[in-house]
């Protein structure tokens, strides 16, 4: 039975690129929304 063999086929760079590709825009959007949300407490 095959098992996960992480790290051999997929490189760390590939993982960083893949997560950065979706993570950076998402974090920027969340931060912008968080800044706008702070108006509730003013």
């Amino acid at each position, binding site marked *: 039975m095959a098992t996960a063999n992480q790290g*051999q086929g*997929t490189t760390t760079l590939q*993982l960083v690129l893949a997560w950065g590709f979706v993570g950076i825009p998402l974090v920027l959007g969340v931060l912008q929304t*968080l800044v*706008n*949300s702070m108006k*509730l*407490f*003013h």
Partner: protein
Amino acid sequence: MSLLSFLDRSHTIAKPGFSRWMVPPAALCVHLCIGQAYAYSVFNLPMTKLIGIGQSAPGDWKLTQLGWIFSIAIFFLGVSSAVFGRWVEEGGPRKAMFTAALCWAGGFFISAIGVYAHMLWLIYLGYGVLGGIALGIGYISPVSTLIKWFPDRPGMATGMAIMGFGGGAFIASPLSVWLMSKFTTATHIGVAETFIVLGIVYFFFMIVGSIIVRVPAPGWKPEGYVAPTQSVGLITRNDVFVYDALKTPQFWLIWWILCLNVTAGIGVLGQASAMSQEMFPGQITPVAAAGFVGLMSLFNMGGRFFWASTSDYIGRRNTYFVFMVLGFVLYCLVPHTGSIGSVVGFVCAFLVIISMYGGGFSTVPAYLRDMFGTRYVGAIHGLLLTAWSMAGIFGPVLVNYIREYNVTHGVPKAQAYNTTMYIMAGLLVIGFICNYFVKAVAERYHMKANDPRAHDALGSPAAARA
């Protein structure tokens, strides 16, 4: 290798060494894009001034006409996920993601022509119908793949993807506003150009997701993971054929649980700004209300990951019990926070409520997997999303019409939402009862090893259970 064969499920089987942590970003590529739907309202006001530019002219579209675009899209989300669910499951995630990308981008391009030619029916067709189909196919496409890659943490895995759907608006909203500001001139509003750019950007993003995505090889399992050999409680080791699932009471109980949970959340989500200002006149300004809506969106997104991940530890059924009981208590408390003028209490109550609204969406795929097995979970999930379409109609109608009725019958605006809150709490009681009656699926619905339906595009039953 031709493009069509590249899209086949057989060409997406992961080679040894492929990290399963590449799959959540692939799913997020799709969900972050189609999550734009939550931010569609940023186009509404500019589209009422396409002719008049500075203000609406006689030939301009009205907000009520434009409101149908989103409604049509959500309707087709439910229809397409139900109709194409089995095709998505059997064709594989890459083919589904690619199709969703084509439909999503195509929807924007057709809508751009509609805006340019000022033909509203083209936008209904583009964003509404084609975009709605992309929403349905795109939403369910990575779900069963993630569950197969993360049999040890299915809630967390699907929570990550569905969190992306909630978070898509955070990217789309500022991006759309910025693009429109770049394309708008003194004599022209840049909606059509913004649609074209968004179509191109989203197509690129979704295609990247479809290239990255892989399905596990038959028999694959995570390192150190020991699959249970027998069904434990509600968690089955058997698969139920997609259309057989419809014959089980469990499917319809979960359908109602989702429908009631979403109805309770979606109504207040759409009216949060107006409700907060009317319940706390003078205390919550329009600017503060906008901040409140933003905070609710963050909790909607965060709740999708938090509650789905939590369900891996406390179980799906218990998670929904928490939604129903905690939701009931909080909805009953909201009128009280209004009467004592507690803004903090009001805000906290709704933030938790909205986190559970998001959590309801993200926990349900794992709930279905527990009940009906892994094999057709994507298709069954697609059928279940019709509950979302139904709730999308019921929720806002309940909130808006009951408020309107109360106001016209002399109830002060600050108290006009009280009845609605108690009705929402009542809906959650029904949800609690439905959840209570969810038991393990009867053995007669389980697929047999010699079932002719077992030897289709998915391969052997053993492979499907990987």
